[in-house]
């Protein structure tokens, strides 16, 4: 009960700053403008379209697939493309098209999850390190340097050795390996922003540091972080496929593009189709993400003329 008036008093103090007329999206926000430029760029549009289509595919896989991806059709093993099985079948007589469609799931889910977890944790670490400074910053950033010393595949191998194989564990592993790049980026933006007038005045009226960081500094980090997010999702998708290829990621019989490519290696002399389709799907998703992140970077960098 005693806390009530105190809280009211604080928000009355903070009111004019946080809830005044000048909300940051009231004048056209630079981030929104950059997103507009991204979509108007044909490369960005194609990239966004590919990503959106594959996300929808992951969502709608049960309705799009002609067969159950796990059902084996005896006597129909290693068929090339036929009218019954549009992309052919694998060594156990399972429909490749259905497995490719379901295979979007681990790629997209691990990619998105790694971005959310790694990005979220990295942004939090970067905000804290940049805003607090001192020994907190030193400890956090040296920790990031250390994680940065292991390329994603190696972090993946190390973490999966401890946690055991599986899609979710891959997402955790990649989140850990992506964390330092987000932390470094966020910290650099925070360092540039934290002595600006709006932060100082927020402090002067007694806003809590957490509120200043999240409501006032963070929005200024969004634009550069978007580029990093799209870039990192590409890295995560690629690493998920690579780890599944090595047998550490998505486990059989669940379909994933990486493990399908791994299976295909035993049949390169008899049936090349099982080595073609998962690679095409994977390259398409990676191309989409690359195009999107290139377009974002271009839209956010006014100095870049020759791209």
């Amino acid at each position: 009960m005693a806390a009530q008036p105190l809280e009211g008093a604080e928000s009355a103090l903070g009111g004019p700053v946080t809830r005044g007329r000048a909300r940051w999206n009231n004048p056209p926000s630079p981030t929104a403008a950059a997103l507009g430029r991204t979509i108007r760029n044909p490369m960005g549009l194609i990239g966004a379209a590919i990503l959106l289509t594959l996300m929808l595919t992951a969502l709608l896989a049960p309705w799009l697939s002609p067969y159950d991806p796990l059902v084996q059709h005896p006597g129909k093993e290693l068929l090339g493309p036929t009218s019954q099985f549009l992309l052919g079948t694998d060594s156990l007589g399972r429909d490749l098209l259905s497995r490719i469609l379901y295979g979007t799931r681990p790629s997209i889910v691990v990619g998105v999850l790694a971005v959310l977890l790694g990005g979220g944790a990295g942004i939090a670490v970067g905000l804290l390190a940049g805003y607090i400074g001192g020994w907190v910053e030193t400890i956090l950033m040296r920790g990031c340097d250390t994680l940065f010393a292991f390329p994603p595949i190696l972090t993946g191998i190390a973490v999966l050795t401890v946690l055991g194989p599986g899609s979710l564990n891959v997402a955790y592993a990649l989140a850990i390996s992506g964390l330092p790049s987000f932390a470094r980026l966020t910290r650099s933006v925070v360092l540039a922003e934290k002595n600006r007038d709006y932060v100082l005045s927020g402090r002067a009226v007694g806003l809590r540091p957490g509120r200043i960081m999240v409501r006032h500094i963070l929005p200024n980090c969004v634009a550069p972080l978007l580029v990093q997010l799209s870039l990192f999702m590409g890295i995560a998708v690629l690493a998920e496929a690579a780890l599944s290829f090595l047998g550490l990621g998505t486990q059989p019989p669940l379909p994933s593009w990486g493990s399908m490519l791994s299976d295909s290696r035993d049949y390169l002399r008899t049936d090349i189709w099982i080595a073609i389709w998962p690679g095409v799907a994977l390259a398409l998703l990676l191309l989409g993400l690359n195009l999107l992140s290139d377009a974002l970077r271009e839209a956010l960098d006014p100095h870049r003329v020759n791209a």
Partner: protein
Amino acid sequence: MWAYATRRILQAIPVVFLSTVLVFLLLHLLPGDPAMAVAGSNATPRQLAAVRHDMGLDEPLPLQYWIWLQHLAHGNLGRSVLSGQQVSLLLSQRIPATMELALAGMVLSLAVSLVTGIVAALNQRKAVDWVIMVFNSLALAIPQFWMGILLIIVLAVVLGWLPPGGRVASGSNLGASLKSLAMPAIALALPLTGGLSRYIRASMLEVLYEDHIRTARSKGLAERAVIYAHALRNALLPVVTVLGLQFGFLLGGTVIIESVFSWPGLGTLMLDAIGNRDYVVVQAGLLYLAIVFILLNLVTDLLYGFLDPRIRSGSG
């Protein structure tokens, strides 16, 4: 420069220290008893006790780390559970193959991306530039291991020109050795080639519009001299500085390429060790690669500071 170098080297020390801690903890974070992980699940209680004593597991954790570190300093990385051999010996047998592959990938990427990057920059917005741009985008989007499989299908299975896997050591037969190296090196080099080519093109274009190039042209130098003597040299400086870091990423990529081509390097050693629960080997492999990566990072930064005076004075 010395102040900058000293500061940068001092910064690397805690990173190396922390990565040894992380790699040390790897064995202790494994589910179950680390002694069981080392001795195998069907070891007798007596064997387990012996292993526990050997590994110093009856000591407190910080002391165990300190002992492990001392062994490390003497090049003693422990023994493989599977073969009983010294892990340091296993590593030293595999490292040359991995380095050979990574170096070949590096040389190949540099050679191709220098040509494509410069040609694209000199033909900005022409058909050649566009073709190279598409090539680079594909090179960046095609996963190395899929490229490896495609190469095996075309060059080994269909055409029969190259062996589908394995390594012929360079001492015995140079021709056969290069043949066994060709496909893994191409597959490994692919994404770096796309990235470097873009980087060289952008760097070249930036330089081509600078004043000293205009001056060189206006004093009547031949276009060839302008490009090779004035533009290229300045454009390639930043490229030199990214190479160290890129070599580190190539080393990471060797793990999967080695698996595709049964290349007997560090990557296949580590993957086999994971399959056999031979965790001491995994630990040593990870530590080796991490320290190489940290050193490459350090050298890159020092080189960059050496080449660009602005970096030294910054808060770096």
